């Protein structure tokens, strides 16, 4: 369902025979956008609907296959307010299968500063998800 909902028809995400015998993986595995979707869901379950994702960065260290039981763990690393007035929480999120860390992620999510603040209302120069911060999962 994750593959179909992201319109990702690459066979390694739905065709067991292809995944095992052609791609060489254990089984069909969770695709990238669906992992992003689960991470979004995990974070916004915490923030509520006013939380607005600014940036997401994750490295997939092992495939998450059919039958794996996935556990999520999150730690708020910092909360800071940038010059534009965005209050960011940078959150480490780990997706684990058993004792193995399958995916390591840092999420930058905008939180309302007070009852009157709505991150979704920010646009243009007032929306600054690239503001400096400790998003230090290496790109390469």
């Amino acid at each position, binding site marked *: 369902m*994750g593959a179909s909902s*992201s319109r990702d028809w690459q066979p390694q995400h739905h065709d067991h025979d292809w995944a095992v015998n052609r791609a060489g993986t254990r089984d069909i595995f969770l695709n990238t956008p*669906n992992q992003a979707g689960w991470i979004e869901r995990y974070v916004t379950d915490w923030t509520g*609907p006013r939380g607005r994702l600014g940036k997401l*960065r994750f490295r997939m260290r092992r495939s998450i296959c059919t039958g794996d039981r996935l556990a999520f763990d999150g730690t708020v690393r910092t909360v800071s307010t940038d010059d534009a007035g965005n209050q960011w929480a940078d959150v480490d999120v780990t997706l684990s299968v058993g004792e193995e860390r399958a995916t390591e992620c840092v999420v930058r999510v905008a939180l309302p500063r007070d009852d009157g603040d709505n991150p979704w209302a920010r646009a243009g120069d007032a929306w600054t998800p690239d503001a400096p911060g400790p998003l230090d999962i290496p790109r*390469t």
Partner: protein
Amino acid sequence: MTEEDVQAWVGRTAEDPPADVVCERGYILHWLEATENANPLFWDSRVADELTGGPVAPPTMLSAWMRPLQFVPGRTEKRMPLSLHFDLKNALDLPEGIVAFNEITFGVPVRPGDRIRTTQSVRAISEPKTRKLGTGRSWTIDVTYTNQRDEIVGVETYEMFSYKREPAS
């Protein structure tokens, strides 16, 4: 192909045509179903009206809106999402590929009715390397997503590892 030929791909860009599909509620519901996402922003129109001035798509759905249809009447060549990735796989004879790293920076929200356009570019290609899955290369592709008003709705980076499996011994 020489290493110089391989590295000549770095900096290559592709401007994709506007997406086949338009952002719409049915697909949003399927996404929410697949991720068991109960965020009222996507389920309760009063919340959406209050916070976002009407319905928006979940931000991480971004790439769903650029993936081509698998069939369009009269289209003779199949379009691939992230076409530069598949062009590279073909050019370097690396038939398999996985994504190892992903980064998305979110811009203006995507709303039902939006039609997304993407621009891709190859940022880097590694030296050949061998991993458990096989021997191949990693490469990094940046994708910029814009809506029909030329507003940036997201910028995404993929790092893929494409490979050829070792022959069975």
